[in-house]
């Protein structure tokens, strides 16, 4: 098939390579506009607090101060970015109203003639905050009496009446009874910063025809435009988003976190406004990969087949949803791994704490599941006395196997991929493993499972 192709399959030189090595590639921050203003954010120094008052008087007297934006200036301040795909409720604030839920939450946007003036004005804003108890652990947040982060009375995202995304196939409890071995593990993973070398940012520019052009490094141009239109309560055709060249994304530039407020500032000052995250904002405020705590309980047969797998996962979404509710569903679709397991139970919780919000990051919902599952597989191998290759081969899924979410497996190539890896490192596989394929299982083959 490859022989028929002319250019697909060729290592053609990158079309943007010359731009990158000469520095001609234009990132959003390489643009500048006459009269451009700079937006810097006043952020909560506390993890959880009631806002009793804000005093802007000293900030307003800073030379170069232009204006401050508060939540009252934002037409649709309470929103959720996934509202566009039907996720509810709206629970995050462009600018905080009476409460802050994480250290770093945005409260007041300061717009000034220079970055230095904006920084100085930010430092002169006086916040009157009453500290509230805060919760930081993904399971402590679910205990009775834990401080409640959300507006709906508990610290989980609700999935159609359930506090978690559920997957159920077969009967894990009955299978555990039959199993020869029970193998359990608890896996904890740390929040990770995407840390692209270019920080998140945009420049919103008023145009001659009354529209606004937003130069942005978002990973999702229309997603950002549509959310901005909702937050600013303007028709989408008043907005013109330009981007497409991103200095690293890794999921860190899908939160629509700078465009709405920068565009609003441009509307209210009638001048271009630049809002770019500093590196410390990117580190401490911008969303991260969530922390995960994953409990796995497996029932294994004497010959090493996984009869049942029960997974209970907790993702620390931080103070707001962002994309995390979506991630738990994706996680649930992958949390049993690429293995043929006839009895599976998955409970995947999206939990809110008073932390820096979590959101998309490379491998969203899956990377840390793969970590937990693959360490667990080695645990199983050791328990039953099989080597790590064999345990994976005999449990690997085939085309036509039913996955825990009841989709039939297709394009299953785990077996062939493992064979290739073994060959690459010079690992001799026994004949039966070398002969395996991902082809649908033949009639009469039950693989020792039930």
């Amino acid at each position, binding site marked *: 098939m490859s022989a028929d192709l*002319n*250019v*697909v399959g*060729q290592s*053609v030189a990158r079309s943007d390579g010359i731009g990158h090595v000469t520095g001609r590639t234009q990132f959003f921050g390489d643009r500048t506009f006459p009269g451009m203003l700079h937006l810097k954010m006043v952020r909560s120094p506390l993890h959880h607090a009631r806002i009793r008052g804000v005093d802007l008087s000293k900030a307003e007297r800073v030379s170069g101060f232009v204006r401050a934006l508060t939540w009252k200036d934002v037409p649709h301040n309470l929103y959720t970015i996934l509202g566009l795909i039907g996720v509810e409720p709206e629970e995050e604030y462009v600018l905080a109203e009476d409460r802050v839920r994480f250290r770093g939450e945005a409260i007041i946007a300061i717009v000034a003639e220079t970055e230095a003036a904006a920084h100085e004005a930010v430092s002169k804003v006086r916040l009157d905050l009453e500290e509230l108890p805060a919760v*930081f652990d*993904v399971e*402590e947040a679910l205990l009775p009496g834990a401080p409640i982060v959300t507006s709906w009375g508990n610290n989980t995202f609700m999935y159609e009446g359930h506090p978690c995304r*559920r*997957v159920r196939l077969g009967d894990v409890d009955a299978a555990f009874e039959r199993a020869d071995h029970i193998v359990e593990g608890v896996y904890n993973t740390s929040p990770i910063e995407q*840390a692209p070398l270019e920080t998140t940012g945009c420049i919103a520019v008023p145009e001659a025809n009354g529209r606004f052009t937003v130069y942005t490094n*978002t*990973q*999702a*141009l*229309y*997603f950002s435009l549509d959310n901005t239109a909702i937050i600013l309560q303007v028709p989408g055709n008043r*907005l*013109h*988003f*330009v981007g*497409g*060249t*991103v*200095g*690293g994304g890794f999921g860190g530039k*899908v939160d629509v976190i700078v465009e709405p407020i920068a565009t609003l500032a441009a509307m209210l000052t009638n001048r271009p406004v630049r809002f770019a995250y500093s590196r410390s904002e990117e*580190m401490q405020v911008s969303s991260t990969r969530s*922390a995960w705590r994953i409990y796995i309980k497996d029932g294994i047969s004497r010959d090493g087949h996984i009869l049942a797998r029960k997974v209970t996962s907790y993702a620390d979404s931080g103070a707001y949803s962002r994309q995390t509710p979506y991630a738990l569903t994706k996680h649930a*679709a*992958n949390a049993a791994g*690429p293995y043929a397991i006839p009895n599976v139970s*998955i409970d995947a919780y999206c939990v809110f704490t008073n932390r820096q919000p979590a959101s998309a990051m*490379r*491998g*969203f*919902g899956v*990377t840390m599941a*793969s*970590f937990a599952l693959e*360490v667990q597989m*080695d645990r199983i191998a050791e328990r039953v006395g099989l080597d*790590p290759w064999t345990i994976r081969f005999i449990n*690997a899924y085939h085309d036509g196997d039913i996955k825990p*979410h*009841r989709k039939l497996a*297709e*394009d*299953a*190539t*785990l077996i062939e*991929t*493992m*064979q*290739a*890896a*073994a060959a*690459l*490192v010079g*690992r001799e596989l026994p004949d039966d493993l070398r002969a395996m394929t991902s082809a649908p299982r033949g009639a009469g083959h039950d693989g020792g499972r039930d």
Partner: protein
Amino acid sequence: MARLRGTGIAAVNYPTGMNLGGDPSQALIHATTSGSFVVSLSATDLGQGLRTVIGQIAAETLGVEFGEIVIDTADTDTGPHDMGTFASRATHRVGNAVIAAALEARRALLDVASEELEAAVDDLEIDGHGNLMVKGAPSRSVRVADIAALAQFKYGRTISGRGSYMKAKSPVDPETGAMDPDSTEAHACTVAEVEVDTETGEVTVLSIKSAYEVGRQVNPALVAGQIAGGAWMGMSHALYETTAPYYPAPDHSPRDFSEYLMPGTLEMPEIESVVLEMPSSNGPYGVKGIGEMTANSPIPAIVNAIYHATGVRIDDLPVTPEKILRGLEARQPGPA
């Protein structure tokens, strides 16, 4: 005190597409009078080389040279809707949309050529180098550029195409989780070799060797770039990175690159990879996608290798020298 070596493996799948689907991408293609083709998109290139890969797919489908393709992205005034670059969706969705648009443009080109050359459309082919000819009669060949100019000025027609690709959005059963979450699965298997210094707890990753199955490599050099960059990022996740070093305590969160640790040029392991291509039924030329998954199998392979080397099983990331030393201590307590 010793330097102990160990080997670990991990095998993973990775799904293609925004979970549950409902994530369309559109493409518009038009020919210029000089025979180049502008592909209008709103997709974003994050550095992985999407512009190049999409250009290759467009060129292949149209039958012209890569150099004749102009990728015009991303501007919402000129580019049609695109959901965004995330969830390993871009090459798959945008690629399919571009194929549909290119086929329509190609058909328009062949229709004009068929009139001009007085041959049936089915008897025409484009050779991949911008030459349009009657099959089996290379002497009856014209340049695509010439047909494009003729179309505009002699026939008054556009040479253009539209394409959209979407996996229909799947519902999720709230009780059973029954759903159709993805378009296809790519796979990886990594073998990692580490050396652990039992005095300092430091881990040196000696090698990360992987097999990937990605359906189709549009550009093997760019795929290799993802594999190598992802192996590094996986090593970084496994051994260094955290914004909450003492989770759940919120203290000591890094503020800058001096506090947020990532390995550098002095920590580079040997990286080797082999790529299999078992085309998916629904990807452009069988593409599955690779953008996110390349850190996934290295992480547990490294952690499993550490166990093999030391007998210390660490279940929480990142693996730090402190965790290794405590683990070694627990296995063999020192003098009281």
